[in-house]
């Protein structure tokens, strides 16, 4: 197995790639649109596409129930899926490039573990009546407290990782530190789970399943701008990320302030990963699979192309996964995390098997 940095002297320059035609970009643009339409039209309740269109265009004479289902349930879920998919894809791309490791995902630095620990503390421990009473006074019940807990948890982990990142040179050291924090957090979560009551455990496990459906318009007011800031940061970092592809030494010789840039990459990626985890739960595999799919389609590892591509592909995959998790035609719901893994894992397997003909995939 070899997914560490390329050995010195190995041939790792940008290949002179023939630009793939507009076909690839058309595909990247059309996919999320189809997925968006499917997301709005398919669901447990049958609403004909015509009805959805009438609701969206504000026509008169649509049943009130349809209007509420489309505008208050399906549309916020679709918007959440788009933002979450784009954010996770982008965070994955940044992490894969930073660590030059095709298996890196947005959570390698322990972000989701920190969030999980925070949520476990709130959901599993603090549900006594007295505590809930205080939380109600503070307006921090239910989803609000879960989101806050996840954000605080991931930020604590992030600040520790950052403190270490400022001191150590090696990205691999950072990677190992992140992994170890992950283990510590899941150990603590296990301890908490041991003493939890059934309904608390059920709530916690439901959170780990991941879901775009729990985010409402009010929460999107915070979620959407945060994700947009993270995506904008990634766009600004595209040039530095290209330099990082060729190793930190090369980046330094290109005039990139490695330590400074590394911190910004970690902050940007972690912001995206932490926000998505806080609002949607830990959603696996999208962050790994999306960048690989984009490299495969565009046949490039140039971040100027990959950044917009990852946004489009991330949105499309997240929407498709959510459509499948709603199991159209049935009344049940499947765990979103299971669907993203079912889509993501084959992609990663494909990547590993095709590595020989693969362009330097940030690896």
């Amino acid at each position, binding site marked *: 197995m070899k997914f560490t940095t390329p050995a010195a002297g190995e041939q790792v320059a940008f290949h002179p790639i023939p630009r793939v035609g507009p076909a690839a970009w058309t595909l990247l643009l059309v996919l999320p649109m189809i997925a968006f339409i499917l997301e709005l039209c398919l669901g*447990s*309740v049958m609403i004909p596409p015509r009805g959805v269109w009438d609701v969206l265009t504000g026509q008169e004479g649509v049943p009130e129930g349809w209007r509420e*289902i489309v505008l208050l349930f399906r549309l916020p879920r679709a918007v959440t899926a788009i933002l979450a998919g784009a954010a996770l894809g982008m965070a994955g791309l940044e992490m894969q490039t930073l660590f030059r490791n095709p298996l890196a995902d947005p959570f390698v630095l322990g972000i989701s573990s920190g969030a999980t620990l925070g949520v476990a503390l709130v959901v599993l421990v603090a549900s006594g009546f007295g505590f809930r009473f205080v939380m109600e006074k503070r307006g921090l019940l*239910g989803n609000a407290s879960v989101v806050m807990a996840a954000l605080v948890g991931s930020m604590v982990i992030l600040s520790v990782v950052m403190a270490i990142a400022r001191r150590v040179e090696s990205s691999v050291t950072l990677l190992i530190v992140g992994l170890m924090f992950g283990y510590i957090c899941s150990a603590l979560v296990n301890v908490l789970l041991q003493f939890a009551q*059934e*309904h608390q455990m059920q*709530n916690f496990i439901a*959170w780990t399943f991941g879901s775009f459906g*729990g985010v409402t318009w009010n929460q999107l007011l915070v979620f959407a701008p945060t994700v947009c800031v993270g995506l904008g940061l990634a766009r600004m970092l595209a040039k530095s990320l290209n330099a990082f592809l060729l190793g930190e030494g090369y980046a330094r010789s290109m005039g990139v302030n490695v330590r400074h840039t590394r911190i910004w990459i970690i902050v940007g990626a972690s912001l995206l990963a932490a926000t998505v985890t806080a609002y949607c739960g830990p959603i696996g595999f999208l962050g790994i699979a999306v960048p690989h799919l984009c490299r495969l389609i565009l046949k490039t590892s140039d971040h100027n192309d990959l950044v917009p591509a990852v946004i489009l592909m991330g949105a499309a995959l997240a929407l498709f996964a959510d459509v499948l998790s709603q199991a159209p035609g049935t*009344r049940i719901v499947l765990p979103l995390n299971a669907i993203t893994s079912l889509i993501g894992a084959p992609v990663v397997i494909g990547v590993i098997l095709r590595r020989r003909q693969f362009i330097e995939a940030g690896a």
Partner: protein
Amino acid sequence: MTRGMIPVVAAFVLYTSMVSIALGDPEVATPRPFFSASESVDLFPHKACIRFARCFTVEYHGTYKRLDVFSPGLKSKETFVYILVAQGHRPPAPLPRGALVIQIPVKRIAVCSTTWSAFFPMLHIENALVGLAGCDWASTPEIVSLIGQGRITEIGDGRRGMNRQVNMERLTVLRPDCIMVYATGIPEYDHAPKLLEAGFKPVINASHMETTPLGRTEWIKFIAALFNKEAEAERVFDDIVNRYEAMAEKTERVARRPTVLSGVAWRGTWYIPGGAGYSARFMADAGADYIRRDDTTAGTKPVAIETVFERARDAEFWIDTKMCGSLVELLAVDERYRLFSSFRTGKVFNNDARVTPEGGNDYWETGVARPDLVLADLISIFHPELAPDHKRIWYRQLPSRMEGRQ
């Protein structure tokens, strides 16, 4: 694996297979009696007759009783057989396959769930209860007082709910004649195999698999069979059945059956009780129209929130909001609850009026033993005119904000 490992692994496999042969099946190891049990005498003049429960049967054979418990695990088709032999008599020969022999009447019993503790005072056998898992969940006054006197020992290991394991050392000191356990079909949660291995006599109580309230309550006869208390059990149960059926009869001819929603959503998914289950039956008997009454499953299912919303936005009542104790708390879980008309009119009720500080809900204790009173609670919600004098026991209307109790 290196070559050097192979003999080690082979030795291990050999050792484990030898051990399992040597130990064999613990039940088969029960010594065979010399004489078969006599059928001519009848030591059990009072016989239980099972009318509602579907998960157990009891047969009488002169000097012993045979208890059969069915499908405690959701998928398992397994039957558990218990041969209850009167003191001083021999078990029948040959024993049914896998049967566990227990001498009755039982003098000392340990119980792995507070769900059944209300039955013991009803049969006046609470003094036989020597061990209970989850003492801090108990609500039944007689049991709480015995715990206070130190006459009932905590046999759980401090963990909560399904995670709880049994403290084997304390059980060994207690020496109960049998231990009543639940079975989920999930090995990590089930105590029976481990207890059996340790030489205890675990009896599986599958009352939670019953899909009707009266079926669940009828497990009082299961407990009674162990104590030869069938006569008391029949009397108590018949009384409850009469009260329950009289209540249910009142709602049979109601002009209007209000629609009812049950459960709450968590992160966009609604965990909703099936239309053929325990709580659906309560709602039907209370003269309500449950929004999933056409559903034929018994268990709780994850359902998309929009499905529930479409069916329930105009429902008149909303019950069983689980962990949500106030309207504000509901709104904090999902602000879209505001759209439900039951929420806007405040007709939201939860069964959490009697919860111990540690989180044990008496609805799952006394409520299981007294379905007639649960039904009365529900009728007083849906049809107050039919139960004008009833003061609700477990159900309470959600306040808009939490009142600072405790």
